[in-house]
């Protein structure tokens, strides 16, 4: 079975097959022998044969937290938390061809990072704003969080009012 795994900006190909009691995992052309035991639905104990070892012996206790998107996980191992996206082979390539919005140009849609309440709107539609200028203050979990402009621009529209409750991801205003 072949997967594509994205960690950070990097997409890598992982092939995996069962060979008797162990798994052969090919990562970017390099083979790792893995003795895997499932501890629970979300925990796997792995003994991994790393470079030079005579047997699968490096103990890696890996556990997983799923996210809303299928194939997105946080992998917890060795005291670290590593966000991973895993898809059937070819998926990420297709996604790139379809084209995705990037950060560089185009309007900046300022969205609430979490559910909360709009405490203050610091700008009006039509205002010119500088990079890092405060635009709107959202209160969540007792702290006020000021959301700022990513770059110089002009406020196109303000979608919220002071005192309004907002969900995570709700677009509060747009800067162009």
């Amino acid at each position, binding site marked *: 079975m*072949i997967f594509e795994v994205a960690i950070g900006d990097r997409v890598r190909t992982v092939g995996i097959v069962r060979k008797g009691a162990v798994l052969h995992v090919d990562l970017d052309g390099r083979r*790792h022998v893995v003795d895997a035991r499932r501890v629970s*639905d979300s925990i796997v104990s792995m003994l991994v044969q790393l470079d030079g070892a005579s047997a699968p012996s490096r103990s890696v206790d890996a556990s997983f937290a799923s996210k809303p998107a299928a*194939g997105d996980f946080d*992998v917890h*191992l060795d005291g670290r938390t590593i966000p991973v996206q895993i898809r059937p082979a070819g998926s990420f390539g297709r996604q790139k061809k379809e084209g995705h919005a990037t950060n560089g140009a185009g309007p900046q849609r300022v969205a609430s990072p979490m559910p909360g309440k709009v405490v203050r709107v610091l700008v009006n539609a039509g205002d010119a704003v500088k990079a890092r200028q405060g635009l709107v203050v959202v209160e969540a*979990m*007792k702290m006020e969080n000021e959301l700022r402009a990513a770059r110089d621009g002009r406020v196109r529209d303000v979608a919220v009012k002071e005192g309004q409750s907002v969900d995570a991801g709700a677009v509060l205003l747009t800067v162009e």
Partner: protein
Amino acid sequence: MKKILIANRGEIAVRVIRACRDMGIATAAVYSECDRAALHVRLADEAWPVGPSAPRESYLRIEAIVDAAKKAGADAVHPGYGFLAENEDFAAACRDAGLVFIGPSPEAITLMGSKTAARRAAIKAGVPVVPGTDEPLSDRASDADVLKVAARVGYPLMLKAVAGGGGKGMRMVAAAAELPGALRAARSEALSAFGDGAVYLERRILSPRHIEVQLLGDHHGTVLPFVERECSIQRRHQKVVEESPSMVVSPELRRRITSAAAAVAKSVGYTNAGTIEFLVDADGSYYFLEMNTRLQVEHPVTEMVTGVDLVQWQIRIARGERLALDPESLLQPKAHAIECRIYAEDPDNGFLPSPGRIQGLRVPQGPGVRDDSGAYEGGEVPIFYDPMISKLITWGDTREHALQRMRRALSEYQVRGIRTTIPFFQWILDDEDFKAGRFDTGFIDRKLRKGPLQEIDALHEDLAAIAAAVHLFTRPVTNGTATAAASRWRDAGRVEALR
């Protein structure tokens, strides 16, 4: 005292329930709508609803809490910290309802809770204070008026909420130009956090360390100070790591600073648990900062170095017992202890709150480790409250020993499904300046400005990729609609198609 109502939620409510259990006292919890299945409700002997999830409609409603205590037939109320813990009206309402308030008197809360009145009390007791305004700034004071006062205090200065605590309603102002904006922000934050928008000004001491003294006072005139805690590791004025003893406090300074703290508390007839906070500058001069008229989040480090259960003593004091503790032993640390506050916040994303369901939880165990937590596997971290989900404490013979145990405990600690500050603490614990004790209260904010927390190294990136593939490959198929067997056939088909 047969039954205590705990007017709080989360990890501190659990901590108080445990103290009550240890003493054979029954417990009544209170809960808001979203907290029905919270750990403190599950552990208490009984639990009473106090309203909707928003704090103002539940945990901050004095009548609802007092009413619950009466219905439960409780003799006493423990406020924990946060919410109504430093609200004199609540302490008075308990007293009026014939309930013992496990904390200081309403009068002491009023006096020491007002930071400006507390400053005057410290001055009267002969304890040095940081230069600043002794009165809150008037709500009607214009920017020009405030600028005039600020010029007298001197820059850089701090804006602080009179009713404040926990870094809320607090702003650093480096120069006059920043003052009007910072003033508006501080007032509004103070109003929303404490229901009181009054703020005052204080000169900022450069490179200060935050040293504080835990006190217990009984109703028979005894006030006892404990060995100091150091809480200089703060992010945006919020303590995140605390330890005891402090590396910079000599036995001589300990004697002076603990006597000063006891003198302030005694001068106002203080009873129950409280903490006096000081700033200590590079040459060992100390300044009274404020008093917290309640139990502190960091109380476990004092418990671990002195062997005293502070919450049990709060209860014993409230029922009239004398402080039967050896004053000398309270000033001699028997170990070194350190605490990390585990928050549901994402350190890789500007420490934004990270509420949600805890999918999996592995709690550190073994020698020298204590986890005071309100979290459990399957539990929710609601968006409505402070995001602290647990306090992790380790101790050892020396500071190095305690720190190494903390590294070990953090590596065992897994909270899956939400982000927490655990990686942030791993980063602090590995910092050379932190290890050497070279820090002040600006340490974290300076270090964080330098860049992101540690990157994931190549080996762990490889292992994560392997683990993810193994996870999907070996995952038992449990699909809500299709039968397991059918799903396996479909998977097999997909595997073939990929060849």
